[in-house]
């Protein structure tokens, strides 16, 4: 397996995962805004913060109105993580490894990119938005499903899954960070706490599983516990870390990456995340993100083309 090829597979998966996550984020926020009274609404600003491009956004925009924010999140060329940009990157990466990925997967990524590009006006309207975003999320699932069912489960595939898990863990921490900060700010919002935490779970496709695992009430501390510490929910950070370790273990020289993953896991499990206050939570999540970045650097150093 060529070093360049595993690097490309890794990024291809990360970008598809990112496109899906942003689409889900927009979708859930969109539904949440309909439930909240005007004064309480947090609008689109937190979503721009989650993806980490506040500065980029403010270069070309004065406020966070729905249309501008949506355009920025979904199709803007100025936002490196817009769904369209992510899919473009996924497609360019897929193109350079077209010889190793199954044809159906290439066609899936290619058609999804074309869909997102050609139907962008649809995605910006209130009415067409839901269908547009659902299509993106479903197609991403199809792509990963087709990969699982049709590609050789060799080392290349391990790197691909690894990339997707790392991206997922990263996005989960971002959502928790920004959402918890913006939620607690106002006393007025109290009655709406519950539905806002539900929406956090929904943006992580975690609502149903949370209920099964944590019981009926949706509470801040339980959501944090579930999203950070669950070993069974596939978008929980700990789950992702454990999977990443399993994936990398059989690969040559992985002894040099595993300590970084273990360290991140230890830091995560030792903390009592239920008790973390807002400021502490932010700091804690920062640490997790630094650990995730370290894991990426280790993998790149060890396996990617130099």
């Amino acid at each position, binding site marked *: *397996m*060529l*070093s*360049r*090829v*595993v690097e490309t597979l890794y990024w291809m998966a990360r970008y598809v995962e990112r496109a899906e996550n942003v689409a889900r984020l927009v979708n859930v926020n969109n539904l949440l805004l309909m439930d909240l009274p005007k004064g309480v609404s947090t609008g689109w600003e937190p979503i721009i913060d989650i993806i980490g491009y506040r500065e980029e956004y403010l270069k070309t925009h004065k406020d966070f109105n729905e249309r501008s924010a949506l355009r920025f999140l979904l199709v803007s060329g100025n936002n490196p993580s817009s769904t369209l940009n992510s899919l473009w990157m996924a497609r*360019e990466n897929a*193109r*350079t*490894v*077209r*010889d*190793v990925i199954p*044809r159906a997967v*290439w*066609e899936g990524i*290619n*058609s999804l990119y*074309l869909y997102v590009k050609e139907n962008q006006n649809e995605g910006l309207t209130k009415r067409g938005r839901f269908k547009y975003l659902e299509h993106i999320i479903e197609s991403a699932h199809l792509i990963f499903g087709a990969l699982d069912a049709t590609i050789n489960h060799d*080392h290349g595939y391990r790197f691909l899954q690894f990339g997707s898990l790392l991206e997922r863990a990263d996005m989960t921490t971002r959502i928790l960070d920004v959402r918890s900060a913006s939620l607690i700010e106002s006393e007025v919002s109290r009655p709406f706490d519950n539905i806002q935490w539900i929406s956090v779970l929904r943006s992580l496709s975690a609502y149903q599983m949370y209920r099964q695992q944590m019981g009926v009430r949706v509470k801040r501390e339980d959501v944090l516990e579930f999203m950070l510490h669950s070993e069974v929910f596939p978008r929980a950070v700990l789950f992702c870390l454990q999977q990443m370790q399993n994936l990398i273990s059989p*690969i*040559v020289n992985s002894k040099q990456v595993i300590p970084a993953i273990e360290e991140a896991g230890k830091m995560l499990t030792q903390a009592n995340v239920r008790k973390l206050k807002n400021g502490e939570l932010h700091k804690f999540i920062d640490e997790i993100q630094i650990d995730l970045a370290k894991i990426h650097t280790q993998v790149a150093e060890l*396996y990617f*083309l130099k």
Partner: protein
Amino acid sequence: MSIDWKKYKNSPFYDELIQPSGEARRHSQQLAGFLASLNDEELSTARAAAELAIKEMGITFTVYGEGSTIDRAWPIDIVPRVIAKKEWDFVEAGLKQRVEALNLFINDLYHDQKIIKDGIFPAELLAKSVNFRPQCVGVSPPKGIWAHICGSDLVRDDKGTIYVLEDNLRVPSGVSYMIENRSVMKRVFPELFENNDILPVHDYPSQLFDMLAAMSPRPDDAPEVVVLTPGIYNSAYFEHCYLAQEMGCELVEGRDLVVNDDDCVYMKTIYGLKRVDVIYRRIDDLFLDPEAFNPESTLGVAGLIRAWKKGNVALVNAPGAGVADDKVVYSYVPEIIKYYLDEEIKLPNVPTYKCMDKADRQYVIEHIDELVVKPANESGGYGLLIGPKSTKKEQQECIKRIKADPRNYIAQPTLSLSTVPTLVDSHVEGRHVDLRPFILSAGDNTQVTTGGLTRVALVKGSLVVNSSQGGGSKDTWIVDGEDE
């Protein structure tokens, strides 16, 4: 309203499907009948289905200088071109003869140069050849094969004779489109394939792999075969991927390879270095190895030529094979065949004027408005002058270029290329076509694709079929059955 072949006008050209009377030729009767049975809506649905298939399958090509659009959908016309098997057998034999002789010629040029010593091929032509590589003199590639893969362009004139227009011996492209066109047509007109004996084209990648594997310097092991691409910005990147995928071998870029102190080539994998035996390279000679050729090249691999000369790796096509891919050398092919094989040429050349020859040059300058002038070493239709379609100013500029460097130009009469009915809106009109079959040479075994890539000039009256300049393509059928 549907297609009415009686109203189809093809004269004065030879049409591949329809006779001047409006009757279909025998080998295309079923096709013509089927097409005529479709109404407007069915035709446009079929066309839309083909376009959609191409877009979704991501069949693309690249046009240089288009800014950020680095790939474009491949244009295909849904009316196929049909050739009777009996005629194709003759063409196939002619192509094999040609490539066999060309390989002997190249090998001779890099060794004893007997053909020059015997006064058949002029020494000054070789001296001025831009594709002759002095670095390759004395090298003996496996089985004496230099041009393992050849793409020859064929055209048919108004009398129905098939000529060879040129031979591409460097890195000919197009074969993946030949195969993909067939896949698209099967999606669009499945019923046609049930009722016709259309010979399949899908075995090319396995034939290619067998040929490549046979060139391995370590014949006992399972050879490591790779396809070397310049990367996604190359116009034929789609094809590089496609062939690597179909053959199940690695697609590599120059930066994936390294030549070690033992003069062997290795690829960089996550497990460390892995030895490479055969490289199907899709990079031009001069960019292959900064040590041996262009020192500025970042596409190639330093030391590659060293490894090749030692026999530690096979390069396909061999560096220097392009010496015979030259429109001036082309004009000597009949003599080359006679010299090495002692046979008469089977598939004729288009009559060719060599501008280096004084009498020929004078003729070309006087008749420039009737001729097609071609530079010896440009591909893709760049730098071409089509006399009857050019302005006086263009002609004068061309004459200037010829006088400055006569060795670099040849001229040929403007051929009345044959036509094939092509869908224009919801009716058909004749459009000019050529045909590029591919010939694989493994030494003991030479194979020709079943048909080839039919390129069509989509603009009315145009003779330029290159996809980079507004050309399209058609599926090409070789059908078994009686000839006319």
